[in-house]
């Protein structure tokens, strides 16, 4: 199989991911309502809908600009915490491959690393603080290691999803340090983080459709 992707491939990939994520919105709403402010379900719905609308008419040959536009679209549709961080991830990933018409696995690594830095900077957060980073960071690291060790793309994606899942589960025993959840303090221990859950579904969906 080909291991490089054109902007149109990325657009259809993001479309699939938006649909997948939207199908999880009720589950995410319930999870977020437990310790957050309960708006994650709405966020995911609005962001998915806006992404679909944008991608349906997008004819953007540059992957960098496509991702940047997706980021702005998400932020406009849903400037909640999750929406803004997701937008920051897209904007940063787009900047990492500015004028590329196609991306290969090494480019995907760069995009993943840039996304991590974008989220860390905007959210002033790091791993271990019960956020989407606990899922995203290990996934990107595992993917990078696999690619650098010469794995093929399907195997590297599998490694990323496995790491994302382990990262997601690790949020259960963490205490929230950010956002509205942090005001629940120790009560957040024992509850899986909603933002990390949404990030897991996104990574899982992207990996499945890239496969």
């Amino acid at each position, binding site marked *: 199989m080909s291991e490089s992707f054109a902007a149109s491939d990325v657009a259809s990939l993001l479309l699939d991911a938006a649909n997948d994520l939207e199908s999880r919105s009720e589950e995410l709403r319930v999870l977020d309502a437990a310790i957050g402010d309960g708006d994650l379900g709405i966020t995911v719905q609005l962001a998915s809908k806006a992404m679909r609308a944008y991608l349906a008419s997008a004819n953007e040959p540059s992957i960098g600009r496509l991702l940047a536009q997706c980021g702005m679209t998400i932020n406009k549709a849903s400037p*909640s*915490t999750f929406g803004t961080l997701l937008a920051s991830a897209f904007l940063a990933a787009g900047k990492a491959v500015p004028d590329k018409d196609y991306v290969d696995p090494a480019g995907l690594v760069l995009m993943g690393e840039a996304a991590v830095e974008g989220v860390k900077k905007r959210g002033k957060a790091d791993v271990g603080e019960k956020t989407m980073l606990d899922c995203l960071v290990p996934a990107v690291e595992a993917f990078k290691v696999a690619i650098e060790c010469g794995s093929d793309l399907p195997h590297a994606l599998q490694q990323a999803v496995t790491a994302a899942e382990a990262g997601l589960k690790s949020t259960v025993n963490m205490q929230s340090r950010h*956002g*509205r959840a942090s005001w629940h303090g120790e009560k957040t221990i024992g509850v899986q983080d909603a933002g990390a859950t949404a990030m897991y579904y996104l990574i899982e969906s992207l990996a499945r459709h890239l496969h």
Partner: protein
Amino acid sequence: MKKIINDPHAVVDETISGILKAYPYHLRMARESNRALVRADAPVQGKVGLCTGGGSGHIPVFLGYVGPGLVDGVSVGNVFSSPSADDMLAATKEVDGGAGVLYIFGNYSGDLMNFEMAAEMSGLEGIEVQLSIVADDVASAPREERHRRRGVAGLFFAYKLAGAKADTMATLAEVKATTDRVIAQTCSIGVALSPCTIPAAGTPTFTIADDEMELGMGIHGEPGIERTRLMKANDIAATMVEKVVSDLPFTSGDEVAVLVNGLGATPPEELFILYDRVHDLLRDRGLKVYRTFVGEYATSMEMAGASLSLLRLDDDLKDLLDAPASSPFLPQWRRA
């Protein structure tokens, strides 16, 4: 859910539309966003522009504070949800009178991220932007972790005094310094009796028994310090005064402005019953009440409850507090 609405998803836009029809001489919509509003005569040339914003559902926060002597522009998001950086940028562009823009907003992660993004985007447009973050809720974090505190009704004092300072044609740095000084001298605490319902969600933000109250609950239903049996007004007043006064701390001889704020469903009668005791308790502690504000200054839709905010004053801040300001949402402010 029992509300006078049409479509739960149209609540914010229809609210804005109604306000613009009611007060066309005070407010207008920004050209590049239907979620950004500015004072009708914006920008004021040479004056530092003040912008605020945040989630809807808190009127008069945020729209109600747009006006002469107050802030110049706002951006509003969905109920309890930040506006986008784009909306903020749209307001910023139209309030910039060439002296830069100060963002004044409550300390919530979504708002902070979007205002920071908007500040970066404004910088690219050649508009200098500074940030002043209101974090006055003493119940939301201990004093040593003030940077984690939420912004609640103390926003009112920040807007009022920042607006007056900007009207003196002070520089951006000076307006920010004064605003930050006001924020540092403001402490608030709230008590909630019943929840509100976000229209698009349809269910109450929390549950509480009929005979219970929650001390320190936030304006989006964030958990407070403790849930207790509903106390008498005098006991609520005593608890609130103690928490607020001991935090800064306010000490004998301090002159203060007092705000007793209703959260939306609590009638003015109850706010004055609360103030009746608050006033005496402050006097007993040797504090001098310079000005008092009682009414709805920061609400949470139909949440029942109230908050108490104190601002420690000096001569400069007293002048700024008394400077003229005008907004259809603040009727007592024709001329102090």
